[in-house]
């Protein structure tokens, strides 16, 4: 791994040896470096789980909140200061399970944030239960007869909601994933990166080689503005497609807010207008 300005030096990292999260950290740092985003200007927001620890392992402002709740604070942060680059990262349990409702509505709201879901199709930190993306038949100590629920297809869901930017990546492909992530961060509006990665400790089915065998990249000339085609690829049964499925350029949430129409300042730099307040109070006479 080449050194970056985000390195924290010799720190204690809570991931298992060989965990896919190391690659995602590497991808993230390199993408940020190439985009020349300064740590002071970057906010990483996360929930709870092994993936949600990632903000602690690089130089950045951090809001490590509650399980399932990374997207709401990320929305609030970006709305309050549009100069910040805001990335929400958490696992599949956090983003698709506990925080599913926030994901749905964030897609509708379209804040200019990047949402990276570390998707290893299992719960790691709680020691190996099914996640919303676990495949049918996947057996765990709790799902002892195998998972019977339909797996959560975030990419298809996001396209169905006319999301602004929808992609899927695989942690094993550092360079390709880095390019997808860079485009996601640069995209104005909500960008989703469904980042597949293996869990070496608990998921013995969806392993590194499983991902190699069961994924393919969308063609280079794939038309990511065609919603129906994107949806068709998203629900493909055979192999999981990787790459950018869909881009729908539209105004970001915070740019629709009236408060920025005549004033670019972030909220913390604004001073309340006492004269206006007095005028408002007098309007109650």
């Amino acid at each position: 791994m080449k050194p970056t300005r985000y390195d924290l030096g010799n720190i204690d990292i809570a991931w298992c040896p060989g965990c896919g999260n190391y690659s995602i950290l590497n991808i993230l740092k390199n993408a940020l470096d190439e985009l020349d985003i300064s740590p002071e200007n970057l906010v990483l927001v996360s929930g709870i789980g092994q993936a949600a620890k990632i903000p602690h392992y690089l130089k950045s402002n951090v809001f490590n909140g509650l399980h399932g709740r990374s997207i709401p604070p990320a929305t609030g942060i970006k709305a309050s200061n549009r100069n910040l680059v805001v990335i929400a990262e958490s696992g599949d349990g956090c983003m698709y399970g506990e925080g599913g409702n926030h994901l749905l509505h964030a897609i509708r709201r379209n804040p200019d944030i990047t949402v990276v879901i570390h998707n290893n199709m299992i719960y790691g930190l709680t020691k190996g239960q099914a996640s919303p993306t676990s495949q049918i038949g996947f057996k765990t100590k709790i799902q002892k007869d195998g998972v019977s629920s339909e797996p959560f297809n975030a990419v298809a869901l996001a396209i169905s909601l006319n999301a602004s930017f929808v992609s899927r990546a695989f942690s094993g492909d550092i360079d390709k994933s880095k390019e997808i992530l860079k485009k996601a961060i640069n995209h104005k509006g909500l960008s989703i990166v469904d980042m597949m990665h293996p869990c070496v400790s608990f998921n013995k089915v969806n392993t590194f080689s499983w991902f190699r065998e069961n994924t393919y990249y969308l063609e280079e000339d794939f038309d990511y503005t065609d919603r129906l085609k994107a949806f068709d690829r998203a629900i493909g049964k055979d192999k999981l497609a990787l790459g950018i499925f869909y881009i729908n350029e539209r105004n970001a949430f915070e740019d629709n807010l009236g408060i920025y129409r005549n004033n670019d300042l972030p909220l913390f730099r604004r001073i309340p207008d006492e004269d206006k307040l007095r005028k408002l109070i007098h309007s109650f006479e």
Partner: protein
Amino acid sequence: MVVNEFNNKLIIVISGQAGQGVSTVESILTSILKKNGYNVFATKEYMSRIRGGCNSSEIIVSDISINSFCDKIDILFPLDKGYSSHLLKRISRDTIMIGEKGNFYPDHENIIEIDFSSIARKLGGNIYTNIVIAGLMLGMLDTDISISEEFIQGFFGKKDNEVIKKNIEAIRSGMAEGISLKQIKINIEKKEFVKTNLLFSGTDSIALGAIAGGCNFIASYPMSPSTGVLTFLSQQSREFGIIAEQAEDEISAINMSLGASYAGARSMVTTSGGGFALMIEGVSLCGMTETPLVIHIGQRPGPATGLPTRTEQGDLEMVLYSGHGSFPRIIFAPSTLENGFCITQKAFNLADKFQIPVFILTDQYFLDTYYDIEPDTLDIPDTGNKSCIIESNLDYKRYELTINGISPRSVPGYGKGLVVVDSDEHDEIGHLTEDLDIREEMNRKRISKIEEIKKAIIPPVLLGDLNRNYVIVSWGSTFNVIAEALKNKEFKDIALMHLIQVYPLHDSIPEYLKNKTIILIENNETGQLGRLLKLEFGINIEKRILKSNGLPFSKEEIEENLRIALRS
């Protein structure tokens, strides 16, 4: 002809189905009467429905401020023939009903029949009925038509001239009826200074206070009776630079608001008990990350959905203990509208200073009540930038250990440092840690802020001298009605100790209550403040006046219960 005479004050009630415009009459009448120099008070009670049922508004017109709900009804305008059982209880033989034939309560004798609908129809339709009724009252009182005209122009300002013209005609027709009504004689003195008094509601007081406190972010989910604050701030969004977002649920609302606060916004949420229940994990996050937040809770009766449109002071204990783990908090419960404005403003400053959640507990009664107040009673700050936010340097530590537990707070993008906050236990920088010594140090640091917070506790409001044998203890929205009841000479041996800050409690409280017979008055079933006083100070309270049927205490009810308390 019997002439009914009303001196110094008049209590009017308008009742009707939801959708019939009871509230419209209320707001037109109160505004115009105030502008003529009458003191006014208005409050409403309503059912959880959009059309139908029986809702009512009470308006008190007086020559000195009477800002309390009264059971008595001098004049009732029934817009419909339906009467709720709680409204019927308030109708006495002396109550004069004015309205259309079919709407009078069967067998009620004291009636004045006026065919408002046919007057309205002559003007162009039933739609003008409410305005004619308002006009009638304006005619019965001594009001200036030009004030009414000006108000109607403003009220319907966005509609076309024809609509405004018709409504002014409706007011005039009503006034003519009112002036010719000889059975009622009203003697209430007008006061010049009242004309420029402010007339707003509890909801307005909280929202205006928020703006005065520098609020520039609110995310919430609609829930009666708290939604008005979100609506108000949304309306003022552009003017005051406020982001007002309707979140997908209360969980999102509080987490969004915390994110905004982390980034330097002055942020709040508004909700009611059930919505707040969903926010409680967020309260704990607020405590752990030491992110300032103002939480307004408009209480209504629970458990669960309870009575959605009614009032209660039932959420003190939930708010007091909300959030797992230990961390300091402040809980305010404004007593009056003036106080609601000042307290809310203060809440933002204290949340910022101590980096804690600050709660404002109101209720449906407080939020839906209007009366006129003197502008000078609102303490408007010289706002400037009172923010405690600092610019960070390269070695900035968000949770630096300090003597009073308060770490200087910076925000991302302001300075060379990084701002790291974590819901996990964390070190001084903010990174998660499982070092148990650090855990203990950090936990102590957070909890120790209480000492600094205690220095700023608002002392209780005291009415009556300290030699009296009885002391009423109460909190929040019940202040006016208790104070009004205590004007009665029968109660000259009763003082009042009213709490605006219900947590932490001021340490003078036990001293005031020593060797007194305490009478607890709370609008809930279990006496939650009483239990807190027992817990904090070991104070035992034997006499309790409690109520939880969804309605506020009336002045008469307080009087009656105080009489019982004095006798027993």
